[in-house]
């Protein structure tokens, strides 16, 4: 039966072929981001005894990276934005999960939740400019984006899941989009990490959007692997189980994308990997001892407060050291002295101290006086009182180390029409992902400069 849609499609197709010319390999792309998934959950699935049938299919049917070198720091917000823009944190403006705020405010700094926090062109923007229907479930930093037509954003302006759900409902687009979906699909618990099925809910809502709205570019973000790996260490039984669960959701999402468009390209990425860690180096304690941070006299039962600071710690797994006055040479020298003294003791777990031009090369932590790179196993903590080194009661999973740490490598899998089958791309740069997705969509990103990955069948055969 000829539906009006098919008719329209029939009319539009020759036009698109003419217009799109060589660049448009596919008209629709589903991009799934699996937070905290090291590629080995998939590439070494058999050796690790993991059942990952859906993601393993990408290795046979499509192209994949053995690892994706991430951005600095290898944490979720800057990495998600790098995946969506092809630009490093120093350009996108999304510099860490939390902003650096003068620490004497003694208030938590904000997360980069908003589209307005992103200074560079996103895939959503590029797709919207090209007139494509865009959609998103939970991919980070979309709140307020006029380029996402159907958006269930990741939105956590408060510390409470119940309130964050309300905020997500109000921030969903178009107005009341999420509430209308909840009326049909039940409550959206996609931001309530105390529930067992937050990822399944996100997938269910995304499948519904794929089915009913037929977006040409859709992003979906799943968190279970990251959450379980943080709590129990990467490749722990809990993290492995989460990976298998997410694999099932990837299968559902891919099926829905292909049902909406048999020629759809499906991309699966992650933002970073994770490494096990057992120790915390509380860098602010030696800073306090050196007079670089002054705290109010600690009273029993009262949280310590920063009274004044000359230098402070902006932690990921490693840390950037920020100076109140970057021109203060005496403080800079003193910080350098403290850091190198700490680095000399292997127990502290410091890999190296970066400064000057080396920091600039990171394209992350702009404005930092120093970057402290840590060895896997130890992370920088922010405590103002207590011991410098703290042993954790049990191993946890962490990320945020510099991207030359291979355990921080992210994932990239792609399959669909026009994608080469069975191609291992080796270790690639995260900034290549967005331009590759843009190419698959036939759209142009304004700010991405890294080369497109050679995933397209035609190019491969040239």
């Amino acid at each position, binding site marked *: 039966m000829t539906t009006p849609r098919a008719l329209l499609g029939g009319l539009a197709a020759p036009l698109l072929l003419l217009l799109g010319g060589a660049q448009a390999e596919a008209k629709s792309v589903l991009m799934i981001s699996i937070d905290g998934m090291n590629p080995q959950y998939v590439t070494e699935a058999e050796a690790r005894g993991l059942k990952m049938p859906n993601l393993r299919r990408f290795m046979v049917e499509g192209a994949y990276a053995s690892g994706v070198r991430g951005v600095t720091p290898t944490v979720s917000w800057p990495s998600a934005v790098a995946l969506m823009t092809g630009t490093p944190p120093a350009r996108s403006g999304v510099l860490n999960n939390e902003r650096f705020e003068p620490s004497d405010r003694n208030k938590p700094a904000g997360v980069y939740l908003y589209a307005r926090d992103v200074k560079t062109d996103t895939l959503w923007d590029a797709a919207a400019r090209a007139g494509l229907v865009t959609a998103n479930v939970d991919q980070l930093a979309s709140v307020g984006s006029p380029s996402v037509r159907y958006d269930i954003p990741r939105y956590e302006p408060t510390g409470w899941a119940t309130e964050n759900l*309300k905020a997500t409902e109000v921030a969903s*687009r*178009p*107005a009341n989009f999420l*509430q209308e979906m909840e009326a049909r699909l039940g409550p959206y618990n996609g931001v309530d990490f105390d529930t067992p099925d937050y990822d399944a809910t996100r997938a269910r809502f995304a499948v519904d959007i794929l089915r009913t709205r037929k977006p040409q570019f859709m992003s979906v973000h799943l968190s279970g692997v990251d959450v379980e790996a943080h709590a129990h260490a990467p490749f722990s039984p809990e993290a492995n189980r989460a990976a298998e669960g997410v694999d099932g959701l990837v299968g559902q999402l891919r099926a829905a994308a292909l049902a909406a468009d048999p020629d759809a390209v499906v991309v699966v990425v992650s933002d970073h990997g994770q490494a096990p860690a057992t120790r915390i180096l509380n860098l602010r304690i030696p800073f306090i001892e050196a007079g670089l941070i002054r705290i109010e006299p600690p009273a029993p*039962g*009262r*949280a310590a407060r920063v009274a004044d600071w000359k230098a402070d710690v902006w932690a990921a797994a490693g840390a950037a050291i920020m100076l109140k006055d970057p021109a203060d040479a005496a403080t800079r020298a003193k910080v350098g002295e403290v850091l190198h003294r700490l680095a000399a003791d292997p127990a502290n777990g410091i890999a190296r101290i970066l400064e000057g031009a080396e920091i600039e090369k990171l394209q992350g932590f702009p404005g930092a006086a120093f970057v402290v790179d840590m060895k896997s196993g130890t992370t920088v903590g922010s405590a103002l*009182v207590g011991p410098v080194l703290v042993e954790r009661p049990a191993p946890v999973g962490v990320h945020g180390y510099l991207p030359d740490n291979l355990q921080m490598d992210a994932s990239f899998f792609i399959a669909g029409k026009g994608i080469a089958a069975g191609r291992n791309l080796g270790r690639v740069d995260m900034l290549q992902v967005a331009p590759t997705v843009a190419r698959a969509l036939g759209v142009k990103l304004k700010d991405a400069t890294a080369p497109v990955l050679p995933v397209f069948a035609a190019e491969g055969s040239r």
Partner: protein
Amino acid sequence: MIRSTRSSACATALLGLALSALAATQASAASVLLISIDALSPDYVTKADSLGLKVPNLRRFLTEGSYAQGVRGVVPTITCPSHATLVTGVTPAKHGIYGNDPLKTDGYSAALCTFASDVKADALYDAAARAGIETGSVGWLNTAGATTVKYNLPHVEPYESEITVKYQEAMATPPGLLTGLEAELGGYYQDGTEAGSEIRTRFAKAIISRYKPGFMMFHIIAVDHAAHAHGPWSDEAKKAVEHEDAMIGQVIETALANDPDTIVAVTSDHGQAPITRAFNLRVPFVEAGLIELEPLVPGRQVKVRDAKVQVGGGASAAIRLKDPSDAATRAKVSQLLHALAADPQNGIDRIVEGADVEKLGGYAGASFVVGMKPGTVVGGDYFGSKLVDLPSVAGTHGYLPEQSIMNASFFIRGKGIEAGRNLGVVDMRRIAPTLAQALGVKLKDADQPSLPVFAAGR
């Protein structure tokens, strides 16, 4: 979350036809502008001359309109529950906004009075939407996500940094409203100062003149801010009152330019009382073993290990039992509270318990409510001195509404409103039905009569 916005959207669709016919017959229906000047005690206006205050815009209501000598508030006499009562006409026990920050007993959450879905009773803007009247709003509490408020810049806290503006942008409806206005009017970042009121005024005027809402709500907070910091009737508070008078003058003028018959109501949520002392009610509960603390560590925030009783703070305090059926604990708490109340030093006015708690219409589910005497507040400390003198006089509210110093304001003028009528002391729940009558709409849940402000023949 039960009363979802979608059900009101449905209701609008279903009832739209029937009600628009109904509304048409109520020829008296007028545009209504509802202004709330947070913490405006009526005395700032009614006794303006003796206080040496210049508030010409507010004073006009005394001669040209009707007004309350005072508005007896709801329990607790704090911002969010009171604002929900102003628009629904029911007590907090019925509208569900029990406190400013019900999620957090210590400190501050970012969830303060933001979401419309928390209000469980029918509000003026819902009734207006059913009647086909468009609502605009700037700074009103618990309105984010209300499908019945068409042009909405909801109150969003905290005002910690410019990040709040992005939160406000995300909560504004229709999507893009605030970003669009900011492009013309400048940034919306505001704190509780007079400058913040100026920003809200600028944006409210733009919404009124551009979209001409039949019902407009506007809330400004500089008086509350100044009175908290320096005490009510301080020079700072008085200056803020004069400032807000000028702000509402501008907003009223803009509304009247749209519709010269606009009925304007100026309300407040509560008054304020000067305070000089904090009574740390949790300390005797810890001493009595009803709250158990982790050992105190220097530089670490105290942690409650176990609490048979949760003790709230503020100008009155709700006491909640972990297990409300635990009769032994209940008896022990009652004995402790009455012993504390017997010492006048502690500043306790009265202990409300048992069935009397329910009669308050607020603090639903509390086993006890401690009403304080104005001047002393319940502090939040778990250890240290039971009584603490504040470093300087401050202001607060939240005392039980029987304390007349907590009285809120109500002034109304406009077409069909009686001139020069003093209504005496009125119940806050009567304001919403009065405004509903002015709008020619019907509130579903309001259970009090409207106020006799309408001139004969109306």
